[in-house]
């Protein structure tokens, strides 16, 4: 059985003047899966997110989401279709409360107010923001702001949730708890594409990992194979890191 890809990124190229930020990048995201997107800073990960979410119009290539060509569509249209992203540099709606922030997300798909309130509450609890809900979003510590990005995006009932470095700055124990949240979201049917530098947060849960370097895709494979990929070790993981994962890999399944 060949699952239809929820997201099909095909030869996407994005240029800023002379600088080629994404160079014919192609990969697919299968419905119900978790795809990790890793690579050095400046490799083009956020640029790719911006192309997919409609902030940028690619110079060439196509992006097909849920069967429709969304290349160059406006961000709000793409969000309405169900592809929603968080921002790496957090963008809280500063003067609104945390609850109202998440409510803005919920109002996308929830038709009446009570439903929207319930959805917002649900997402706030899911992202452990309940103690902050009446505070101004701008007052949150950085970790809270990152969780807010996620709660807000989640409230829109996305089909594809694109997370941009949401695990930065979490301790290992917090990462484990976060992984559980992600797994539950997967069970509820949400497909996810996750940009991360925190390997212990992405390797245990990803079905597939895509690696970008210098605007080019250098690998697309299962986490196990990626960790042993010479090019990836050279460009990104470093020798020490791949060593760190090897014993765990042999002894127990990742995650």
């Amino acid at each position, binding site marked *: 059985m060949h699952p239809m890809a929820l997201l099909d990124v095909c030869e996407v190229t994005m240029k800023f003047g002379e600088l080629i930020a994404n160079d014919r990048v192609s990969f697919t995201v299968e419905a119900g899966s978790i795809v990790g997107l890793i690579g050095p800073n400046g490799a083009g990960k956020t640029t790719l997110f911006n192309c997919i979410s409609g902030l940028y119009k690619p110079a060439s290539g196509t992006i097909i989401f849920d069967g429709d060509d969304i290349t160059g569509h406006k961000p709000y249209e793409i969000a309405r279709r169900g592809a929603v992203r968080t921002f790496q540099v957090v963008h809280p709606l500063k003067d609104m409360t945390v609850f109202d922030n998440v409510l803005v997300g919920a109002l996308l798909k929830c038709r009446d107010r009570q439903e929207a309130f319930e959805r917002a509450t649900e997402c706030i609890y899911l992202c452990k923001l309940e103690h902050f809900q009446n505070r101004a979003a701008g007052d949150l510590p950085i970790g809270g702001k990152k969780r807010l990005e996620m709660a807000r995006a989640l409230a829109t009932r996305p089909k594809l949730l694109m997370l941009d470095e949401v695990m930065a700055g*979490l301790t*290992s*124990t917090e*990462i484990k708890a976060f992984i559980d949240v992600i797994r539950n979201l997967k069970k509820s049917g949400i497909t996810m594409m996750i940009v991360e530098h925190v390997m212990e947060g992405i390797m245990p849960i990803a079905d597939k990992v895509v690696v970008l370097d210098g605007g080019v895709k250098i690998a697309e494979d299962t986490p196990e194979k990626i960790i042993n990929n010479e090019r990836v070790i050279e460009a990104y993981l470093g020798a020490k890191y791949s060593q760190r994962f090897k014993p765990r890999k042999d002894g127990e399944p990742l995650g």
Partner: protein
Amino acid sequence: MADPILKVDNLYAGYDGIPVVHGISLEVMQGELVAIVGANGAGKTTTMRTISGLAHPLKGKIFFEEKDISRLAAHQILKLGISYVPEGRRLFAKLSVEQNLTLGAYTEHSQKEILRRQEELMEIFPILKTRARQTAETLSGGEQQMLAIARGLMSRPRLLMLDEMSLGLMPSMVDKMMETIIDINRRGTTVLLVEQMVQEALDIAHRGYVIQNGKILQSGSARELLDSEEVRKAYMGM
């Protein structure tokens, strides 16, 4: 037994009069590499900011080289020899690497001295030499982090305070960063660092403090903390 270079005594600190830090006491000896670890929002950054003068203590005292610095302003504390590199880099994006470094030596008046220090730092951070004329915003995340630390070192601090240097860095860069911090410490600068990557921080530190809910949960040698059941369970996911 020598006196500590930095002594924090029963510190209460926070924002808008509401304490986030509830009675923290710690000390750093000359030449040490001390790590402060803990979860998001536990009070690590608040502690750092208060020591560096960006915030004032609600209660308690802070001593640097036996001088009470609790009420001093940030620039005065910088002059005394503490340099704080905040999380999130906070570089001057449109200025070049060289210009960012020069501004780090803001308290130094001799041009010759500033240039000398710049050269020294480019030795420790060779990548900055390659990119000397580029604007800070064109550097990659790891390079920016290096620049932030180098800038912090330009004022020749006796105590370097680093806040979440590993944030947003790719794995190979995190390793490089940790190696660089060890190098800086070996060259004679006392280092106090805040890190959320508990394993990595304790791997390079002499001693550590674990902060939870604004209080010190545990302290001791790095080895002791790494072996502690409580720390492993609560922070290292074991």
